[in-house]
Structure formats: structure tokens, C-alpha cells
């Protein structure tokens, strides 16, 4: 917008006319110590907790520690510009970030500023980063599925819109791959995604952005990046920023998914900030309020009541464990906060089972309420069959004298495990998942060699799309798989195996 010199002159005149009448009152302090992204400020007696502070050179900070004589603040920006004796002012505002659909497709830092080289973010709205989660009266039960496109998850530990589902496991075994598949699977569903990278390498974030772009998922995604090279203060703020961006959609009756990758590094950043602020260290040197840090963040994920627009914000926090130890401080905290966890296991990953999800330790506390009825019908026995298989598989390798029932369980379990394997960045629509899982749980795979199962899925799904589009269409639209549909599906599987699928039949146990 161009402003004419006349407008500037008249605005100046108005301002100068009002000069004698209005005074700006501010609460000020003086920097007495600065370093590591933290400043100790004398004065500022009226500063509020979480209030935004104004340092010289346009640098901002956030008041965290309110003490008798001093205020401890994190500096959100270049702290090297701040020196002792600099004047600091309160602003009367809490930290805000831009929100809205203008951010979709963009990569921003923890303050909502563009870091993708596509120019500044031009969002019309902004909102505070620290907010109280919606209360009981504003919420509603989670009963709609958020399809991840991953068979093992959608069948056995379904995630509902508005749920908090933790993804936990050691490093480099596919935790981020699970959430990327989920984000990719939201194409065309109207679910807006926010991926928040905390303390990661710049290269890893660049790779995530490239992957999302390559699979056409960046258009409905905001990437909030606070990498390992950013100050700890920005890493601490980043998930709250991402959550606020997601809440914008939730509060307008839309659906959003926010991924925090990962909260272990977030806790590290918060520990660093707290120790430099000289807060008393507790267990593993984390401050006493590290539980509240994550609980208040994850409580903001919610399904709002219909009277509030019925919007949802689903949260997928990630926790990285060390040597598969789930009993350390931060993992136990986040496990207790969330509505279930997906446990990704190194042994399974190394054994070629990918995604390396352990169905025994993984759980979704929302359960079948977040599944379409068709999936509930076919996947009901899946978890039980797999749990029984895992229990007896360990014994089975020591002897061959097994009774028929045990051998059947083993054969079924091996085939179901094989069926749940899935390639990366290849999410499957839910109606096709139903068809494949039906083939497994109804015994349709029992006469196939294990080596043929992956190929069976690859060839059966296109066959089904071509020959029985109405069957897939009816599962998609009605969400049901009635007796007639089950019979039709069984016939289709039998026909495919008999007439189309080239394989050497194996005798069923």
C-alpha cells in the first residue's frame, strides 16, 4: 500500500498535536547479566510472567523468572546484541506469532518468521503462544478417525481426531517416517498439518521439507523449525508456536494435526534454559515443572464441542529413547500425559519389519471409537492373533513337536506380520487396508507362501480397484462391511488367487 506524503504529514500533525496530552508510561529495567540466551534484569517490578520484553535494537525477550529484585528473561533473537546496562522495557503483551492459512506451505522459525527464502509471511492474524487449553464443557468425545494410511496403526491402534498419541522409540528406526506418512495421507482430507522440528539438524529438516514437497503434502503443511543451531529459548518456544498455529484451524471448526519432533530435545532445551536461569534442578537435572511443560502443551490438543464448531487438533508428540529404556523421566511423563503410544522397536526394524511397530506395547486409549466400523470388523482379532503369535514364536524356535493349534497360530501370525509390513511414503486408503486385513484375518493368506504376501498385496489391490470398484466405494462411503460385502470380498480373494495371482500354493496348516 502506497502512502502519500500528505497522509504522512497529516498523521505527523495529529501525533504532534497530541504530544502535550499523552505520555507513554513504561516499566523499565537494566540488564545486569547476559549470556547463553538469558538475561538477568534489575528493575521491571511490574513485569508479568511470560510478558514480552523490549531490548534495544528491536530484540525481544520473554520474562520467565520473576524474583524479588530481578527478572530472568529468555532472549528471542540475537542475544549477542545485548550488553550489560542496556535498558529493557515491558510491553504489556505476551509473545504472539502469525497464524492462518497464509502459513500453509511455508517453513517458519519459532517466532513465525519465514526461513524458506520465499519472502516474509503475510498472515492477517496473530495469536498468543501460551494459552489455556479448552475446558471440560467445550470438549467432546473423540470418535472420528485420523487415518494415518499405515495398516498397523489404523487397524490396531487407531488415532482419533483430537487425540494425543505418542510415538516413542530409539533413534533412526522410523519415528519421523510414521508421521511423514500420516501427513502425506492427509492430502485431500482437509486436515491441516503442522510439523514442528525441535533441536534437529538443519539437513534433517531440509529433507523433511523436500519429502513433503515431493509427495504434494507441503501445500497443507506448516513446518516450524527450531534446529540445533537455534538458541535453546527458541527451541523451548517452538512447540507452543506450532500448537497456536494448529489451534487457529481447530477454533474455526476445521481439523488440524500437529507433530512435535521431538519432545526429548524440547525437554533438553527447557532444562538448559532453566539451569541458566538458576532454577533448582530436580531429577536428571530437569526443573520441577517439566511435567507441566508438556502437559499444558499436549492438553491443547482437543476435539471441540459441536457448539464450538467441532474443530479438532490432534497431537503426535515424538519421544526418542536411549537403548529402548521407557522408564526414564521424560518418556514416562509423556506416556502418562498422552492417550496412548506407538512403540517403535529397534529389533523389529533390524529384522526388516517396517514400520517397526510393536503391537504388544503400543496402545490407543481412544480405541475402536476412532475406527470406521468396517475396520473394527476385520481388525478385531488382529491384535489378539499377533499377541498370541509373539508369545508362542519364542518357544517355537526350540522344537518342532508342536500341536496343530499352535502350528496354525504360528502360520497365521507369520502371515499377518508379513501383511502389516509397508513401504515408506506409501500410505494406503482405509478401504484398501480393510480389504487386505480382511484377507489376512479371514485366512485368505494362509495358503500363500510368506514370500508371496507382499506381492499379493501389490497385485490384489489394483485387481480389486478394477474388478470391484463398487465394493471399495461402499466401504469408503458407508464405512461398513456387512455380510454381503464380506462374502463378495472373500469371493474376490479366492478368484484372484485362483485365476490371476501367479504363485505356488502352500498347504494350509
Amino acid at each position: 500500500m502506497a502512502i502519500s506524503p500528505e497522509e504522512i504529514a497529516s498523521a505527523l500533525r495529529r501525533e504532534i498535536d497530541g504530544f502535550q496530552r499523552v505520555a507513554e508510561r513504561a516499566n523499565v529495567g537494566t540488564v545486569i547479566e547476559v549470556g547463553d540466551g538469558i538475561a538477568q534484569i534489575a528493575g521491571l517490578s511490574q513485569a508479568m510472567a511470560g510478558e514480552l520484553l523490549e531490548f534495544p535494537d528491536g530484540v525481544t525477550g520473554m520474562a520467565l523468572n520473576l524474583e524479588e529484585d530481578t527478572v530472568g528473561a529468555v532472549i528471542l533473537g540475537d542475544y549477542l546484541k545485548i550488553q550489560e546496562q542496556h535498558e529493557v522495557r515491558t510491553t504489556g503483551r505476551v509473545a504472539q506469532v502469525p497464524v492462518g492459512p497464509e502459513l500453509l506451505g511455508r517453513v517458519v522459525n519459532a517466532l513465525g518468521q519465514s526461513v524458506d527464502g520465499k519472502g516474509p509471511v503475510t498472515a492477517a492474524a496473530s495469536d498468543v503462544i501460551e494459552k489455556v487449553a479448552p475446558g471440560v464443557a467445550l470438549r467432546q468425545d473423540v470418535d472420528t478417525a485420523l487415518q494415518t494410511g499405515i495398516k498397523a496403526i489404523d487397524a490396531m491402534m487407531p488415532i482419533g481426531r483430537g487425540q494425543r498419541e505418542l510415538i516413542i522409540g530409539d533413534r533412526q528406526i522410523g519415528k519421523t517416517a510414521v508421521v511423514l506418512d500420516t501427513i502425506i495421507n492427509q492430502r485431500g482430507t482437509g486436515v491441516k498439518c503442522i510439523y514442528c522440528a525441535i533441536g534437529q539438524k538443519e539437513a534433517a529438516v531440509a529433507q523433511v521439507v523436500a519429502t513433503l514437497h515431493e509427495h504434494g503434502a507441503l501445500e497443507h503443511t506448516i513446518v516450524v523449525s527450531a534446529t540445533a543451531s537455534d538458541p535453546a529459548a527458541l527451541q523451548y518456544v517452538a512447540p507452543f508456536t506450532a500448537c497456536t498455529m494448529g489451534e487457529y484451524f481447530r477454533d474455526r471448526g476445521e481439523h488440524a494435526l500437529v507433530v512435535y519432533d521431538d519432545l526429548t530435545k524440547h525437554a533438553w532445551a527447557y532444562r538448559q534454559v532453566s539451569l541458566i536461569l538458576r532454577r533448582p534442578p530436580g531429577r536428571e537435572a530437569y526443573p520441577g515443572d517439566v511435567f507441566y511443560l508438556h502437559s499444558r502443551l499436549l492438553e491443547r490438543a482437543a476435539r471441540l464441542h459441536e457448539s464450538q464448531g467441532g474443530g479438532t487438533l490432534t497431537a503426535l508428540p515424538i519421544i526418542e529413547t536411549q537403548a529402548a529404556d521407557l522408564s526414564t523421566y521424560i518418556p514416562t511423563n509423556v506416556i502418562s500425559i498422552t492417550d496412548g503410544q506407538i512403540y517403535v522397536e529397534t529389533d523389529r526394524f533390524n529384522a526388516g519389519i517396517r514400520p517397526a511397530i510393536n503391537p504388544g506395547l503400543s496402545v490407543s486409549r481412544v480405541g475402536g471409537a476412532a475406527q470406521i466400523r468396517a475396520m473394527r470388523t476385520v481388525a478385531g482379532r488382529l491384535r489378539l492373533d499377533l499377541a498370541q503369535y509373539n508369545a508362542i514364536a519364542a518357544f517355537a524356535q526350540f522344537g518342532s513337536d508342536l500341536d496343530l493349534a499352535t502350528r496354525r497360530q504360528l502360520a497365521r501370525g507369520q502371515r499377518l506380520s508379513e501383511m502389516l509390513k509397508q513401504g515408506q511414503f506409501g500410505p494406503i486408503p482405509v478401504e484398501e487396508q480393510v480389504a487386505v486385513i480382511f484377507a489376512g484375518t479371514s485366512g485368505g493368506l494362509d495358503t500363500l507362501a510368506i514370500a508371496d504376501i507382499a506381492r499379493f498385496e501389490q497385485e490384489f489391490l489394483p485387481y480389486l480397484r478394477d474388478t470391484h470398484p463398487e465394493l471399495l466405494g461402499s466401504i469408503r462411503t458407508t464405512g461398513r462391511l456387512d455380510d454381503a460385502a464380506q462374502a463378495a470380498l472373500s469371493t474376490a480373494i479366492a478368484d484372484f488367487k485362483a485365476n490371476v495371482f501367479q504363485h505356488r500354493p502352500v498347504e494350509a496348516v
Partner: protein
Amino acid sequence: MRRGGAQRRRRVRAYVAALVAQAQRDGAWDAWEADLRVLRALTQDRDTRAFLEYPALPRDQRLQAVARVAGPGLGPGGLGILRIMIERRDTALAAEIERVFVRAADEARRLDRIQVTSATPLSEAAVHALDAQLATPGRVLRLTTVVDPRVVGGLVIRSGDTVWDFSVRARLHALATALR
């Protein structure tokens, strides 16, 4: 030595309580304040603090060096405080002790310090008028004036950690924000 917040505050309070008690006895508030100001300036530098707390040199030799550098600016009371600080390795607390002492001393003397900043020097009449306007009954007002051309025009009045900004600079800043 870097200490935790609570421990640091406790030590600062102990020094200030002793100093306030002494100042109440001898009434030399301003002299103590001046001594603390010199101590703060002396100990601001990390290397100087390291020298002051260097155990290989006899303590009296270190104090004599300080007395020589500070000259008449540092009274015997100030040297005594410095001796205790060196013994307890508390020289890093000097700035905080000064700040807390000044506040406690002001409260004890019912003294208000107000600083007025203007772009050009204020006339004597203007200073008197401000003095009359800003004084609170029952309290002593200590008005200091500062000239800073960056305020462009008008006045900036600071009392404690509250600032009333009547300057043209603040108006221009507000205008710039409004036009952005």
C-alpha cells in the same frame, strides 16, 4: 565464584543489612553509597576481581593496591567492606550489593530519586517547577537532570523503574509503528 540465585541473594542481604545498620548509626548514607559505587566500578572487570581474590598475594598488599588506585574516592569503610568481600570471595556481588543498598537506603531515608532527561539543558526555573510538581509530601525528592539530544524534544521522567515518556522521540516511535 558463581552461586545459585537463592544463596547469592542471601549473601547480598547479609551485606546490605550490616551496611544499613552501620549507616543508621553514623548517618553517613551518602558516604557509604559513594564507597559502594567505587567498589562496583572496581570489581566490574573480571581480571580485577581475579586479582583481588588471588590467594598467592598477601591480602594487605592487594588492599594497598586498591587504595592506591582508588585514592581518596574510597573511604576506610569501603576498604573494610572490600576486605570482607575478598575474604569471602564475594567481589562479584558488589554491583548487586550497591543496587540493593541504594534501594534500602532510599526507603530508610524516605527519599525519592527522579531523573529528568531533556534534549537541551533545563532552565533553573524549569527545574524548580518540576521539583515542586513531582515532590510527594513527607518525602525528600532528589531530582537529577540529564541532557540527551536523542529525545529530540519534551521530557522523559524516570522514578525507580517507572518511566513517563513525554518526549518527541516516543511520539515519533508511536507514529512509525502506527504507519507500518
